[in-house]
């Protein structure tokens, strides 16, 4: 028997025990990104195969979930998105103007704490539909921040961009989701239409800087 078998077995056991708890998270994110159960399964398998291959590069004590998700995001971008890259130009983060779709008061009231299961289900479906219409970049942002509840720092590591960029991309994604939700909710009669001034967001850093100057 080759001499390194024991080492491989120990490493394999450790990897399995560390990775298994995140299978649902990986699949959930993969399914929302690819929108196809078959592609999602492939993506998760490819992710775990890569993770296992490069397991020795994982720094013990750091966030394993974020590490797995980073591998998955890279795999997704490199392989599954290549075919649809052209579409990205029109659907990507630069496509929609920032600030679009900020909720009005009546919309907010209609969607805050829906009463009854029927209303909840209806809004739940609308959220899914609005989410599916988002660009891949925006979907990833909403998934990582709002569904998986990862910190901005973790997200910045997963998608490979500075925290400030995470904030503006996340802001844009949320506003797009809300905008789409609002227009459909009005059409479906879940809420009444209203009009309110739409604001342009400014980066938090700029806000802090302004605050510093004032004080």
């Amino acid at each position, binding site marked *: 028997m080759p001499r390194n078998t024991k080492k*491989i077995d120990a490493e394999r056991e450790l990897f399995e025990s560390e990775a298994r708890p995140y*299978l*649902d998270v990986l699949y959930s994110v993969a399914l929302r990104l690819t929108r196809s159960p078959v592609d999602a399964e492939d993506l998760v398998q490819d992710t775990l195969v890569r993770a296992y291959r490069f397991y020795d590069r994982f720094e013990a004590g750091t966030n394993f979930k974020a590490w797995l998700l980073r591998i998955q995001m890279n795999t997704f971008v490199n392989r599954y998105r290549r075919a649809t890259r052209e579409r990205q130009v029109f659907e990507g983060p630069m496509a929609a103007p920032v600030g679009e779709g900020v909720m009005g008061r009546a919309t907010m009231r209609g969607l805050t*704490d829906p009463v009854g299961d029927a209303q909840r289900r209806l809004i739940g479906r609308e959220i899914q539909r609005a989410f599916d219409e988002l660009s891949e970049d925006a979907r990833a942002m909403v998934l990582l921040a709002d569904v998986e509840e990862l910190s901005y720092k973790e997200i910045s590591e997963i998608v490979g961009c500075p925290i400030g960029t995470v*904030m503006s991309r996340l802001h844009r994604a949320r506003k797009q989701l809300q905008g789409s939700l609002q227009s459909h909710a009005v059409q479906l009669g879940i809420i009444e239409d209203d009009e309110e001034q739409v604001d342009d967001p400014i980066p938090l850093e700029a806000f802090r800087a302004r605050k510093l100057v004032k004080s």
Partner: protein
Amino acid sequence: MTCKLVRRHLGAFVDGETDPATQIEFERHFEACPGCQEHLAFERSLREQTRESLGGIHAPEQLWNRTLHRLDEIDVVRNDGRTPLAARPMHLRQTWIIAAAAAAILIIGGVVGLPEGTDYQSAGMLQDVVNLHSQALPSDVKAEAPQEVVRYFQGKTPFPVKPAQFEEPSVKFVGARYIKVGVHPAAALYYNHGGHRVTLLLFQSPEIVRDAQRTNVGGREVYYHNVGGHVVTIRQHGGVNYAFYGDLDRPVLFQLAANARVED
């Protein structure tokens, strides 16, 4: 702090990403401003509803096991210290499985009475074909997406999976899934023939045809095995075995195998 600023950075506040000093300022503002309170309640509620409607998905039951099979492949290569391309021999672990399977077949063989002249390895695989049909495991690819079949099996089986097509219009594709016949990665394709289930297993194993009986149906070469009174018919295409088994009469099963077409 103005309402405008509070609302612009509400997301970061709800995410808990504002520094402590800013957070206190936010909280003070909310205490005094019912309008912003409403925005806060909405932001939190929408966050919760988003999580509810998009999260909580569970991975399919077999996904972890399938992943482990792929990790096995890496381990086998690592154990050998060879590159995946060079490594095609039978590995220790697999040899053991075959030995175990052969032992199991000895026992099963004693019960169902396997045909003489078939070696144990082929007998095990044939028994698998029969068992996999009776288990009727759920499909991973559904009939609504037959074009997904080829893609689904990419990277799973060492050969491209091309579903068989039939002249008979009564034969309908139902679904497919990844499976193993003996130690060989296989594609199980499910069909329905006039209300009867038919399972078609695609896998690579030269011995299964070598040990088979051979006949000619309508000018086409059909191999067959007798497995404890059941007949499994086999066609070969591009080095891949297409093993047919189903709830059908023998002549129908032969006809089906003979009429199967595979696009190149």
